[in-house]
């Protein structure tokens, strides 16, 4: 009798599990969060779990693939992929499309079957990891922060270094050479200051402030050769608006660009990069000879609101063999575009530059209007890729090593917290609609109040432990040498010492 009861209970449970929802078919697609509708996804991305965006109930999701229909587990209104199944589906459907049909309870309480949305599985794989800083929303003070790496093929996040181990130092501007996790740097400020550099298998902290630089290195860019690092040197300040939509404005009173050669541990620069204008945000082209950067006119007196204070895009060549620089050449004039050009990032094929365009200054995460633009160096065409941008600030972007993916730091939709979004690039100037960094739980971002700061792709895991970073950062910094052939004033202006 007991056995029969068990069987009856089992059968009824089975019936309940396989309950079919026969709702009316509607012609609209479901509003889901994160928005993973109608996007191109890499073959190696982590499962894109989602829920309905407006709080209504998700009953069932069927995914039609090339060979089968997969029913997703819907638990508590969330559509969750089985990780193995997801990987198999992606592997089996490269260059093909997944069609998602969701059955939901709509806002009137009716069960409806929505129009399908799609995801195209691109054969272009995405770099397996991203690195970023996680930080609270705070502008002057900081406390807990760290540089983290996340495998985007799954959901695993690991700290590269957290500041609790190094006296709560401020740390940022982590940077890699051509997305190579074996070649990395990050700056440490306030306590244990210096620049920790992972180079040639060795992790060491350096003091990059010299007689020919106004500050230690700030915004870096590694040459693809893996041993030259261009860095800006800046005198930075920030101001707070009473107007909440503007909130905060970060600006420099002075800035230059220097170059650190890790082979010789020598810092060099040239008068063209140390003018009274504000040179900033260097970015190497993949040829390793051309350095792009932004520059704005010298500031005079009170900064005001800096409306109309714009940065232009310039470039200069560098010949390492002779340690000689070419002539600075303006690529995009800010006045021609009517705004400020900042954070230039050259695509790995060297043809495109993705940059942020805003109405003032260079530090644009707080500029609501800031958008990513794309410059085609071959045709000089500039486009504003729709799928990459939103009504909130877009900034701090980076290319994957194959040039087919762009990661963008966007404050969408809340306007407050920066989160990484990915968009596919077809190599011909076209981006697909972007999608948010996937998390195992679709509710993850609901109460997540840390900012993903300066997200960058890396092709694998950084081969160091937080203990190694801690020990390197706690050690005394190794001074770098100033290039004796450089004879300029550290505080801009390229004034020769002899002229003083």
């Amino acid at each position, binding site marked *: 009798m007991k056995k029969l009861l068990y069987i009856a209970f089992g059968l009824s449970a089975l019936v309940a599990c396989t309950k079919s929802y026969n709702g009316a078919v509607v012609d609209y697609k479901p509003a889901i969060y994160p928005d993973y509708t109608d996007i191109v996804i890499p073959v190696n991305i982590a499962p894109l779990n989602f829920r309905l965006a407006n709080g209504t109930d998700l009953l069932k999701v069927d995914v039609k693939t090339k060979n089968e229909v997969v029913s997703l587990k819907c638990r508590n209104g969330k559509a969750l992929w089985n990780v193995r199944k997801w990987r198999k589906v992606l592997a089996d459907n490269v260059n093909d499309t997944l069609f998602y049909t969701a059955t939901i309870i709509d806002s009137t309480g009716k069960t409806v079957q929505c129009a399908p949305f799609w995801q195209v599985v691109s054969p272009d794989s995405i770099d397996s990891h991203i690195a970023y800083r996680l930080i609270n*929303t705070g*502008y002057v003070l900081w406390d807990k922060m760290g540089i983290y790496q996340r495998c985007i093929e799954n959901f695993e996040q690991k700290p590269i270094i957290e500041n609790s181990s190094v006296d709560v130092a401020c740390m940022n501007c982590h940077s890699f050479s051509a997305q190579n996790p074996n070649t990395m740097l990050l700056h440490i400020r306030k306590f244990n200051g210096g620049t920790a550099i992972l180079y040639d298998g060795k992790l060491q902290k350096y003091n990059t402030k010299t007689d020919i630089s106004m500050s230690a290195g700030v915004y870096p860019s590694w040459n693809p050769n893996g041993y030259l690092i261009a860095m800006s040197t800046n005198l930075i300040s920030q101001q707070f608006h009473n107007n909440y939509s503007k909130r905060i404005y970060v600006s420099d009173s002075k800035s230059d660009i220097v170059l650190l050669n890790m082979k010789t541990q020598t810092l060099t620069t040239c008068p063209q990069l140390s003018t009274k204008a504000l040179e900033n945000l260097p970015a190497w082209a993949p040829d390793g000879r051309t350095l792009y950067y932004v520059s704005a006119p010298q500031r005079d007196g009170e900064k005001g609101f800096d409306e109309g204070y714009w940065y232009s895009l310039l470039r200069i060549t560098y010949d390492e063999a002779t340690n000689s620089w070419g002539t600075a050449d303006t690529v995009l004039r800010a006045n021609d575009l009517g705004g400020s050009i900042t954070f230039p990032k050259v695509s790995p094929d060297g043809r495109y530059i993705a940059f942020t365009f805003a109405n003032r200054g260079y530090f644009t995460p707080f500029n609501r209007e800031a958008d990513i633009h794309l410059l085609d160096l071959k045709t000089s065409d500039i486009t504003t890729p729709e799928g990459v941008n939103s009504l909130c600030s877009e900034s701090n972007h980076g290319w994957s090593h194959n040039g087919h993916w762009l990661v963008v730091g966007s404050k969408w939709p*809340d306007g407050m917290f920066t989160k990484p979004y990915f968009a596919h690039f077809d190599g011909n100037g076209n981006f697909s609609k972007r999608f948010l960094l996937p998390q195992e739980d679709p509710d993850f971002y609901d*109460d997540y109040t840390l900012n993903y700061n300066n997200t960058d792709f890396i092709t694998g895991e950084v081969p160091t432990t937080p203990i190694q970073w801690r020990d390197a950062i706690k050690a005394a910094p190794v001074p770098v040498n100033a290039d004796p052939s450089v004879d300029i004033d550290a505080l801009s202006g390229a004034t020769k010492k002899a002229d003083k």
Partner: protein
Amino acid sequence: MTRKLVGLILVAIPYLLLAYFVFWVINPLSYSFFQQPAFVLTSDFLWTKVGVPGGLAEYLQLFVDQFTMFRFWGTLMLVAELLLTAFLVSRYVRKVVGENRLADIIIWLIPAAIAFVAWTDVKYAFAINMQVLLLAAVLNLQQSLSRFDWNRFVTPLLAIAVYHACGPVALYAFALCEIVGYFLNPDRKKLVGVAGAVAVAALWPLLVYKFMLPIKPNAAFYDMRPQEMMFISFNLSAVLYLLYLYPPLMLLLTKAYGRISKERTQAIVTIAVALVVVVTAVAGQQKRDKLPERMGFRMGAAAYRNDWNQIINYVKENESIRKSENYDRFVNFFYNMALAAKGQLCDRMFSYPQRLGESGLFVDEPMATVSCLPMTMLFHQAGLATNALHYAFEAQSTYTSSHYVMRYVIDELLIIGDYESADKYLAKYSNTMLSKRFVDDRKKFLAGEKDTEFAMSGVDAIRSKHPRGDFYMKNSQYDILKIVTNDKDNMFATQYLLASVLLQADLDMFMKLILGGYCKVNLNALPRACQEAVALYRALYKEVLPGTEKPQVQPYLQDQLKTFQQVVSRNSGDVRGIVDSRFTDTYWRYYFFFNPKVTGVSLSKK
């Protein structure tokens, strides 16, 4: 009366005294206002805590700390924690030394002592008590296992557990207990366990630091502060280390006590120890004013509840808080704020010694997380929500989930109208204990309900105070000026503006403010400090601004100023002493003798 009843009373009385002490003297509210990190009900929170030495103790203490938002419940939880510690230590001592009357009074001595430490160091004492509590629990467990032969091999593992649950200092205390226990009851079988515990104490922190956890050397070797507190650079009181010595000291003390053969002597010692505890408690109550810092926290908690009378009464009732050696910037700050909220700042500000001048009015320089919450409260009251939010965010960088900070972050976002971000912080805040009522209320507000506590708190009025136009916030005085320029009826901000100029001893600017129409003042009925400033201006300057004659000064104040001038110009005897005693509350005294420009008192020197 039965012997059992007498025993019960003897135990109950000290605990009632203890509860009284915690409720009135320590005051859980002041404890909570030290921006206690909240206890968060997520697994992430648990893992981040238990991942570091001492993390479990911190996690449990954060649970207890939540209740300090409420005076009664906070008292109950803190006293319960102290009781449990005492019970576990006393049980351990009995197990090692055997039944002993002194072991009974440990149950008095320990919580009382910890309460006193908490009284002198409100920030860390209970957190460290939780470490001692867990240490005592492990010691009890170890004693329970002592009848098994394999216990000696378990002891080193327990030592490791103590290190990770309670921190490095607790590990050293554990090893010390093992050594003391061995010498009190020598047993060769136990030697392996003792040696193991000592070896763990000597080597484990080094191994953890070098190879296991990326933590700071102090966290690995000697720090006993909770992880959340590591970010706050307050000095640690050395007396806190003594708390860890309780278990081993009690072992030695009870053993020695047990050797006193005469019962009468034992009774005398027992009563003496009890008396010491009671007398110290009473003496402690009398000396509570010695701790103005805690007073500052208590006033902060009152300010959060808009209980301005309580703040004013604190200062009124505690004369000693005016003494220079007891000066506390936050007491000064909250007192000024309470006066402004009551509309009395420019009348009564000099009833408290404004030793730091303008720095007692604004505590944003130098900016530190501990001063950001008070500044949030100030700008919330003044009506500049963007600045209040800015300070709340800065405070939040350290006090990630503090109830006070989170509530201000959410409310300022709601006032500003950033509902999307407010909703996210509400979701985050709902992960903490004791947030339900607040979260439900704000969610109802977001849903458009009109009868919420928040909607009825005057949110529209606060919004209307926000300065229009576009400007950079520069410093607090400038920002306050902007608020006043926008809304001349904002009396709170107007008082701050006038007070800040008075405290700068800038009479010229003060006169320009009141005569130039920059703020709304009734020239026929100026607050007392303002009248004193006007009288002084007229007396000091022959070439005066146009309209200087307009503000009315009460005749008695003019007479008083004449007397003041005579006293000062006589320049004989103890002029300063006379001024201090006869003109204590006057602006003139401040202007000539007391303002920081004259005294050279700066923030670092207090």
